């Protein structure tokens, strides 16, 4: 079974070549890995590779097929890119435009202020929405020059993480 996994900006092709209990053989972008992998606690994998011990922590994200994977010193965002994910991506693109034009809430919080209105022209770096969580107010800015096409929330609304707030064209 082979799949594509997006990790940061890289799209890695991964394939399980062989599996006998905990002993597994993988191929990642042409490199093979002989591993002894055990899930020691929920979400914590102990991996032995060439005699070295690694602990990886895997946290399912807010969307299906999205993960945060932590090694001892790094944190990665990983997305499983299967046929369905490709389809959803294409659909979102058609509905909301390029990902870079969407302002997403990165955390649950409350909308404090929306200093822009639909149809308004905004410059790159201009603040389009302010969300407050845990006594901190975070400003979210337009990534590029454009026109505000949609505003999905209003001031005072409670928002979830990864919710589309504003679309700029």
């Amino acid at each position, binding site marked *: 079974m082979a799949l594509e996994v997006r990790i940061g900006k890289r799209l*890695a092709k991964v394939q399980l070549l062989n599996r006998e209990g905990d002993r597994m053989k993988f191929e*990642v972008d042409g*490199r093979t890995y002989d591993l002894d992998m055990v899930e020691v606690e929920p979400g914590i994998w102990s991996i032995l590779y060439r005699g070295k011990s690694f602990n990886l922590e*895997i946290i399912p994200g807010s969307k299906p097929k999205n993960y945060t994977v932590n090694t001892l010193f*790094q944190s990665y965002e990983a997305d*499983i890119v299967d046929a369905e994910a490709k389809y959803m991506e294409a659909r979102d693109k058609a509905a909301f435009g390029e990902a870079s034009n969407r302002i997403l809430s990165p*955390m649950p919080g409350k909308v404090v202020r929306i200093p822009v209105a639909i149809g308004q022209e905004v410059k790159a770096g201009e603040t389009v929405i302010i969300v407050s969580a845990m006594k901190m107010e975070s400003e979210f800015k337009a990534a590029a020059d454009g026109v505000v096409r949609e505003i999905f929330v209003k001031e005072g609304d409670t928002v979830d993480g990864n919710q589309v707030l504003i679309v700029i064209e």
Partner: protein
Amino acid sequence: MIRKVLVANRGEIAVRVMRSCRELGIPTVAVYSEADRKAMHVRYADEAVFIGPSPSQESYLVIDKIIAAAKQTGADAIHPGYGFLSENAGFAQRCADEGIIFIGPSPYAINTMGDKITARKTMIAAGVPVVPGTESAITSDEEALAIIERIGVPVMIKASAGGGGKGMRLVKDPKDVLSSLRAARSEARAAFGDDAVYIEKYINSPHHIEYQILGDQHGNIVHLFERECSVQRRHQKVVEETPSPLLTPEVRAEMGRHAVAAAAAVNYYGAGTIEFIVDEQLNYYFLEMNTRLQVEHPITERVVGVDLVKQQINIANGGKLPFRQDDLVQRGHAIECRIYAEDPDRNFMPSPGVIRHITEPLGLGVRHDGYVYEGYEIPMYYDPMISKLVVWGSDRDDAIRRMRRALYEYKITGVKTSIKFLERIMENKAFAEGSYNTHFIEEHLEELTTSRECDRTCEDLAVITAFLDHTNRLAAASVKGPEASPKDSPWKSFGRRNSINRL
């Protein structure tokens, strides 16, 4: 004598106060908002009273509701913790008027120390060194220019009612004085409803060192030595330690005497903290007094061996301090790391959410003051601090090594935390050498926020783990088979049940 304590707070500090009460055999009352029904302090307390909606302005900050909760439960004392109503003189006065013991200082001490210009005047009168600058509020532009002429740039213009960095302006060039003065005034008026400002010399490369004070109602005041709090980010303390690696025994003793004099100047009783800023030449100046328990009080408890909450209760009961200055010594070294629910990789953005899994560090010399548990949702309404990890070691090096070990063992999933960021501080060379000041995080930000190099192996292993988790989930789903859809018609299941019964 205090028979029942209401803790007018939430989070780790509420639990910490209740722990000491439990050891003293005093029953406790928790108060909670809508968001906090499942919070640890509600579970830990003997009684709990609901006080309203989640925003703190409608619950934890409403004096009438707190007083009503105390009356309703028959609590004869209120511990305010830190933050919320802890430095509100009106609240302390109201408790007194209602015949409830406020576990803290007198309203007079809170008021005098709460206003920065009054505090400055009081300290000058008591012979405590203050940062060179004005003694009273600036009344005219000419006065401001004359003062800056005298003490020289750089200077800080500060709001008298200030706090949290609001109404503060750094002036490096004399030509910016008037515009900065106007900006500080308007900011102060907007934030505090009071545009009184004063001018202080700006101390470059400062260290933030504070002294723990305990005073009883019989006029005895002692200090419990210093805490070095220079590792800060946006005026928010991140790591604290005691003893300070900067101080010499002579300066330490002299600062202690001044700290006691500062507290004596307002007839202080209860636990309090005198904050000083210290420059590289060990010149020190009074900054302000916090008239409450500090977040970082456990490192003092660990090194001096005194339970500060128990002493607060003893003092509120009218008891005498059970020790004198000469009885107190610092043993070993303690460090505290504050664990915040925030994402250091994305500019320290707050990260509220559900704790999926938590493994707390244990073992020799580790104390962990927290309040979260598996399945608990950290609300978005309050402070992002999850817990305080405190370690003790026989010396500073031992304590740093122990902190690295404890951070390594500490695992939280579900929310992003500052644990990795703290690990990098503990690994930092300047920190290990003890040569740091309040600019530490700013100066080392790149090193502290970039992941350590790992070859492609780490990334590939992450890819493999994600792949494996995903395929395991698919396999688990297919074994279970199609689940009953909730849209199944009740008539259909009724019919099926009847068919079975007929057999």
